[in-house]
């Protein structure tokens, strides 16, 4: 089994590295952080370079590559910067639903907008009282003449801000089914439709540059044709793209870990205390060795999960969930160690690693937390998943 990347993949990694070197300037990023502004310019440039529609078919302005290439790129962007990387990696939040289940007209209209960095997309799944998998959804979509009329409130909508072009919304289209997972459907809602109110969810631990919103839909009307996939099939479709979300957050987490590692490794090689470089203390060397080992382990797990998505497969559930579980925990441990390696500087915003730690926690909490992942992994082992 050859674990080395082929020439094409190495080239992709290098392209991302060059992009990061040219665009992720420290002063620019800290300026964005201090003003809590979306990395607009970097996002547009990423669109130009094809980083936002990596695995969209070329017919929809994509690069026609696969999940493996996507996670290579996302990891590289997060290594460059955990917060900017998250914005770029999550720019197409929910587009996997469109890719897998949308019809041709919907895909042709909306996917290019994301690939070209015209708009962001937002996945509106969770609600204040919903379960982690879409249970107890209360947002309704009632068919009136040839339109769906949507009413409800969604929370933790990533990209629910001003640059969003459309929402991918999980709705209850058959209210007679009660609060069960049956009777749910996915609808595409253009962001400029009347009746949508967005509210930022306030200060949080990480992903500072991302808009995370509560979105209220009040008598929002969309054409019948905005149904993505089959009516009543919403829950299954949500489950269907979960593996993809696992891999995306795993790639962000892994890149965050790698970025924290590189920064702290560089620091301990130049910082002197007690008459020697910090790297020359055995404890430091063992810490570095552990961090590097955990990162490589997580990377192989991520690659395994991503490769199971080859040829547009929805991926192996066990491996995709394991990849997220390991990558996120590794990111937390590595970033925590990185802070410690920097000493007092590790606690100072200017030195970045504390932000990588906070962003790592976001990756661990979003897109399926540790608890949810372990439940799902166990089910695959027992034979239910």
């Amino acid at each position: 089994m050859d674990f080395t990347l082929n020439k094409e993949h190495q080239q992709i990694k290098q392209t991302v590295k060059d992009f990061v070197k040219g665009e992720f300037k420290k002063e620019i990023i800290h300026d964005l952080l201090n003003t809590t502004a979306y990395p607009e310019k970097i996002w547009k440039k990423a669109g130009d370079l094809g980083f936002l529609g990596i695995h969209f078919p070329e017919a929809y302005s994509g690069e026609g590559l696969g999940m493996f290439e996507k996670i290579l790129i996302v990891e590289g962007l997060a290594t460059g910067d955990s917060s900017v990387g998250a914005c770029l990696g999550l720019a197409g939040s929910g587009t996997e639903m469109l890719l897998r289940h949308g019809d041709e007209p919907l895909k042709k209209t909306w996917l290019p907008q994301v690939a070209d960095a015209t708009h962001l997309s937002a996945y509106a799944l969770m609600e204040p009282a919903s379960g982690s998998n879409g249970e107890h959804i209360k947002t309704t979509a009632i068919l009136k003449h040839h339109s769906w009329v949507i009413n409800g409130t969604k929370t933790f909508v990533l990209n629910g801000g001003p640059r969003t072009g459309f929402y991918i919304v999980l709705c209850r289209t058959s209210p007679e089914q009660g609060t069960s997972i049956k009777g749910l459907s996915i609808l595409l809602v253009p962001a400029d439709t009347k009746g949508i109110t967005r509210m930022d969810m306030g200060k949080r631990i990480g992903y500072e540059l991302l808009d995370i919103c509560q979105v209220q839909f009040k008598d929002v009307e969309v054409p019948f044709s905005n149904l993505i996939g089959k009516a009543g099939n919403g829950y299954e479709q949500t489950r269907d793209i979960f593996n993809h979300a696992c891999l995306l957050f795993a790639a962000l987490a892994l890149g965050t870990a790698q970025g924290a590692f590189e920064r702290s490794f560089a620091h301990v090689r130049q910082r002197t205390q007690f008459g020697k470089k910090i790297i020359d203390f055995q404890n430091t060397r063992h810490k570095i060795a552990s961090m590097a080992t955990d990162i490589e382990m997580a990377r192989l797990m991520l690659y395994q999960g991503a490769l199971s998505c080859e040829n547009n497969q929805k991926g192996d559930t066990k491996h995709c969930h394991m990849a997220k579980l390991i990558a996120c925990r590794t990111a937390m441990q590595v970033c925590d160690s990185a802070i410690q390696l920097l000493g007092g500087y590790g606690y100072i915003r200017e030195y970045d690693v504390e932000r990588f730690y906070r962003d790592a926690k976001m990756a661990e909490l979003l897109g399926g937390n540790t608890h949810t992942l372990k439940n799902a992994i166990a089910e695959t082992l027992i034979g239910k998943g």
Partner: protein
Amino acid sequence: MQEEFERYRLKIRDFVEQVLEPMAVQVEEDGKIPESLVEQMRSLGLFGLSIPRIYGGLGLTTLEEVMIYEQLTRTNACYRSRIGTSNGIGSMGILFDGTDEQKTTFLPPVAAGRYTAAFALTEADAGSDAANIRTTAVLDGNDWILNGTKQFITNADTATIFTTLAVTDEEKRSRGGVTAFIVEKGMPGFSIGAGDVKMGLRGSHTHELIFKHCRVPKENVIGGMDMVGQGFKTAMRVLDKGRLAIGGAALGASQKVLELCVDRVKQMIKSKIPVQDLQAIQFDLADMATQIYAARQMLYHTAKLKDQGENVTQKASMVKVFCTEMASHIADKALDIFSQEGCLTQNRIETFLRDVRLYRIYEGTSEIQRIIISRDLLHE
């Protein structure tokens, strides 16, 4: 005496719950504690917990002091930080080694909270390697001239007096060549530099200190001219004492976080989530509670030994490293229990995670603590 202290402890507990905690989110978002709250802290005697009664403080024992910190940290860590240096590293040098005049001049206003005391040891090249400080002090007539820069100094913006360590003999350095001075705000050549933007403890302000030909009178050498060159010993004793305080702070935060998690799980049970779906979380709560119980015994026992006059250097290091690592671990687990909602500042948990992280770094990193502990084990 015990009843009196217990009344005080409960008073502080109520103060935290009714006054400090309701303001916690705002303090976090503003990055500052309103002066009205600081004034209430003054009138409760919080600035003079460890200062003897003869100087206007409460003269608490070590055990009593850490029990108060345990209460005070059931909210944002910055409140304890505001009084921490006045009770600890900022003032203890004067209490341990100061002249009678220095004690009677400075300790009463510190205890009353009118003066805040800060501790200035750390520099850009002297973190864990405190002996590597570069700030110098040269005698010139009746004054010492200080030159250098200090970094990450807590409460620099509100402090009136700064226990400052400077090299007075370049040959001897930490072995008899470092002196502790009381530098006062407003002394010529002394200025406060840029403030740090930190991961947490946002309501607690740390700054650079700049000494540029700063004139400090001879009278301000801690312990007088006889103590010139003895400052490093003073500094180490002061830091030694601080470890139990940090242990108390970490313990208080952990306990509060556990209680928030327990409330959360009770809510989940109330909203009909099947108990079998909560087993993993229940086991997490059990582990948290067990660690906290162990930490509390360790902390209280060590504090008692110290009050009995024993040398607790090694044990205090154990307490610091155990309690602070526990606090990080518990806050992290708590965020998992709160899931997505845990990431929001308004839900409190994430602030605890960011606040407690510094405890494993300052006043002696966990690595330094492990050196102290193992050195003691291997000592012949």
